[in-house]
């Protein structure tokens, strides 16, 4: 019988060639079959989206869902773009400033919490982090009253404000971990040279921050682009971001499936492209304990 203490002997000398299990061809083949089957499951919705969106309305029937289009048609994209266009623009007006502002706020907070630790800094950090784990339904009613009172209800600037504020916990967390990696000696040397807290931030921390900004920026871009609850509660009609418009489109039964699929693909494309080309930065954001959305 195998017991744990027997097994774990980190110092044990190991002859690698003897013990590394040589995988049989059969095992390798089975592993590939499993991965390919799983991939089919994950890619199937993409296939359905693309195929359906490229069909003529007459070809979009229940029986022919899985078939390739006989005639390529981009008409559904034209219709989808007509309906979503202004809302795509709203989302861009929302996402770009919100991402930039919240990245800078997180950067400053993270810098302070990592490099200028004061008494109670850890407690303050936990205090901020809680904001990440709150179901936003529990702040929604006061939030809307507040936005109405300051005249930002049903506006994109209102949504920007909301995303900057509720982005504080996650951006601070990510940047705190990022700045923790800058050696203390670098900061100390600058301090001895007479640089102050802001001087060190602008001249030393910020120039080193590009990788941090990439990770946090991609994370915020994706989260804010995809966000729905705030968007649907705070805006209506012409002010709505693209995800709300997409949901409205699919909610109306008269809109055909090819248009819905084209619209879904259009709305998903920006974050999808970011994932395809900058995926490893997105995964780093994901692994810093983040889960919103």
């Amino acid at each position: 019988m195998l017991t744990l203490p027997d097994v774990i002997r980190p110092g044990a000398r190991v002859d690698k060639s003897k013990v590394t299990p040589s995988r049989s061809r059969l095992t390798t083949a089975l592993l590939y079959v499993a991965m390919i089957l799983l991939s089919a499951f994950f890619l199937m919705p993409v296939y359905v989206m693309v195929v359906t969106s490229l069909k003529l309305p007459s070809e979009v029937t229940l029986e022919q869902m899985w078939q390739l289009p006989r005639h390529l048609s981009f008409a559904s994209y034209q219709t989808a773009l007509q309906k979503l266009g202004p809302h795509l623009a709203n989302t861009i007006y929302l996402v770009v400033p919100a991402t930039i502002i919240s990245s800078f706020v997180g950067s400053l907070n993270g810098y302070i919490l990592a490099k200028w630790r004061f008494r109670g800094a850890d407690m303050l950090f936990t205090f901020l982090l809680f904001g990440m784990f709150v179901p936003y339904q529990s702040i929604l009613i006061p939030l809307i009253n507040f936005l109405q009172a300051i005249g930002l209800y049903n506006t994109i600037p209102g949504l920007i404000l909301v995303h900057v504020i509720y982005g504080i916990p996650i951006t601070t967390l990510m940047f705190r971990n990022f700045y923790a990696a800058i050696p203390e000696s670098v900061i100390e040397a600058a301090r001895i040279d007479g640089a102050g807290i802001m001087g060190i931030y602008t001249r030393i921390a910020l120039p080193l921050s590009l990788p941090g900004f990439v990770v946090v920026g991609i994370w915020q871009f994706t989260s804010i682009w995809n966000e729905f609850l705030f968007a649907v509660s705070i805006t209506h009609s012409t002010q709505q971001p693209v995800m709300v418009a997409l949901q409205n489109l699919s909610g109306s039964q008269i809109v055909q499936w090819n248009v819905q699929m084209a619209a879904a693909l259009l709305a998903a494309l920006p974050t999808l492209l970011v994932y395809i080309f900058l995926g490893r930065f997105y995964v780093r954001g994901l692994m810093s304990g983040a889960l919103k959305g």
Partner: protein
Amino acid sequence: MTRLSWSRVAPILLILPSVLAIAVFVYGFIGWTVYVSMSNWNTFVPDLSFAGLKNYIFLFQDYRFQSDLRNTLFFSVLFIGLCLFFGLAMAVLVDQRLKGSAFFRNVFLFPMSLSFVVTGVVWQWILNPSTGINLLLKALGVDNPPLWFVSTRIVPAWQVGKITFGLPVAILAVVLAAVWQMSGYAMATYLAGLQGIPEEVKEAARVDGASSWQVFRLITLPLLRPMTVSIVIMLIHVSLKTFDLVYAMTGPGAAYVTDVPGVYMFETTFRGNFFANGAAIAVVMLVLSAIVTVPYLLSRGRRDLFDVDVT
């Protein structure tokens, strides 16, 4: 002010705006929501007169809210269980480092970058009982394919309170879409865990004659426990606040078979003007979520999980 004391005050001053913002917009607003939940504001015109626990008593006797709690229970258990299972399986597969592993890993993870609204719209089409998956099932010879989210069946049908208790079959459609989207998260977390296990530990076990399965069960699995804890907590949080996926995919469903507290809260507050009831639902969601996340956040050991290097 001397330089020394300035350098003590400056960090606090610089972080103060964010702290105040969170104090007001998170903690203050939660307090305000709790206050609203104990008021009579179930009308278009605000009425903040005190109502005690009236709205909570109403909710827990409400057919729709009881259905929501049932649905959330079954949804959470299935969604989290399947994400853990598939996440671990995919992590182990990818960790074999066969040629092309990176491609498969990216495929398993890509739905994470999509909006729940997109997922909902697409899966609504795929699980439409007259086409999609059922077309494939019929081709495979299944005569009575499932009705997916259109089904109103609940198994087993026990009468509890006002509702029929059991698994609402329709919720399986939502579970499927949610697992499609989120199991990659479990995979990525497990993968980070697997890659942190020193190879020598496993080698040593093999020298002692352990089979691959024994190495996995007695070494790998126990060492992955912190990952499992972190995934479960994150996914409980996700499932308790679920709104967009259900709202985009199925809505409340017939007899509320796919309704969840998030959807009820939104509809009753912003479509029905029952602000106090909506606030009470939100408070119940917050409390359920806090039971899980607060101990996690406060325990220092768990905090280490947040300290993943983002460089």
